């Protein structure tokens, strides 16, 4: 059975330079599509992949990733903005690693695009009035 899933991978600093993803292709016959890649302030690598292949290969690939020390998260957590509390300051604009925030050209109001959000959590504590909320 073929599967295709979106997952968030977090690489501790020591793994950032290792060719882990290429092994998924070579050794586990998986296809991947990088949706986002960045390094967080804590020097942790953040990679969002769409991973596809046979279910059995997929399961083995995930086991391999876990064993190397990569943390895996499904894209299921939900981050929302409390519209009452958001002041449209814009502090989040340069914090979000995936560019989920943008400004409306004329008004400079801050737009939040939930679709681009990977639930990394960075905006939760950096939003000054704490308007961003993480739901599990």
């Amino acid at each position: 059975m073929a599967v295709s899933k979106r997952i968030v991978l977090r690489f501790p600093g020591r793994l950032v330079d290792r060719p882990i993803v290429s092994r998924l292709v070579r050794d586990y016959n998986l296809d991947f599509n990088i949706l986002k890649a960045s390094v967080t302030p804590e020097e942790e690598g953040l990679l969002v992949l769409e991973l596809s292949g046979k279910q059995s290969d997929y399961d083995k690939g995930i086991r391999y990733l876990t064993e190397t020390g990569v943390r895996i998260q499904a894209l299921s957590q939900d981050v929302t903005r409390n519209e009452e509390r958001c002041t449209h300051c814009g502090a989040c604009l340069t914090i979000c690693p995936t560019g989920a925030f943008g400004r409306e050209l004329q008004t400079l109001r801050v737009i939040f695009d939930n679709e681009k959000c990977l639930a990394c959590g960075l905006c939760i504590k950096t939003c000054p009035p704490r308007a961003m909320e993480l739901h599990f």
Partner: protein
Amino acid sequence: MAKTINEINEKINKGEAVVVTANEIIDFVKEKGIEKAAQEVDVVTTGTFGPMCSSSAYINVGHTSPRMKLGGGRVLLNDVPAYTGLAAVDLLIGATAIPDDDPRNKIHPGEFNYGGGHIIEDLVAGNDIRLEATAYGTDCYPKRKLETWINISDINDAVLFNMRNAYQNYNVAVNLSEKTIYTYMGMLKPNLGNASYSSAGQLSPLLNDPYYRTIGIGTKIFLGGGIGFVAWHGTQHNPNVLRTENGVPRRSAGTLAVMGDLKQMNQRWLVGTSMLGYGCTITVGIGVPIPILSEEVLQYTTVTDDDILAPVVDYSRAYPQMQPDVIDEVSYAQLKSGQITIQGKKVATASLSSYPRAVEIASTLKEWILNGKFLLTDPVAPLPGIESGITFRPLKERPIED
């Protein structure tokens, strides 16, 4: 053509005043010319909405029975310590106060989820606040322990009193070091990873009256969604800085001390604020009306984001080490575009003060004046200008020897 504030107020009362925001005036003057515009326009409204740490509220909670001398005792409001060095039941709560058991930066960066700024917001929102107090007891004030709920609607006085707000221009913060830093200007990523600014630029009150020709002590303003007044010049008021040809400060310059009855203010415009790794504060909304008394006064209000330059400062070294170094100057037009270039590198910008909310303040104040709800006041004394010779001094540290 010079007008007086009295004449402007008469027009406001008759519903005939012409009021525009500091944004609208720019095109208005372009279209009509300065002379004609000065005849037509009576008031230009400004606005700013940003974190302002030197904000506080003082409250008088009323006397207990038997009486208790909170003054000189210890008072916690929702666990946040209030200042009690005043008479029996007067308290002051500062925006940056935090609970004794807040972990602060022990685990860096600390979160600072609740502090004095949030107390002020909770007060104005009408939320109950837990007051716990201990006192030493005297013959005339025997009670020594108190635990009670208080609410703004029940207490005698609740006054917002901010000793430094509405900075005339401000630093743009960047980080030249190799690691992320957490500052009052937000999280700054290493190696010029981002830049953070905090001024409404062409809408900002003191940038529209750079030499304090109209804004003075006693000027009535929009404060926290209600009405307030300029009480004094703010602490660190520093008129003698580098200025552009048209008088606009190129560094942080003038400031305002403001006050007003907290009971008529609004939670939307006094927002408890947490700066990761730094502390608690409050985001304050201020709008100042500028009476167009002359062509000169009008000319100043036509300042645009292109004309206002802000200094770019390294918060990893220059700022903490009190070094005067300025890396570069950028305009608010560049800052608001979302990207500036520093040392040849493109750097994304973010703001801590809210421009959309500043626009809303200027528009609200305009509505109030147009509807006759808000009359202007004549200042009773001017703010210190360049001629005052005031400069901003560092602390002269003198070692204490035994």
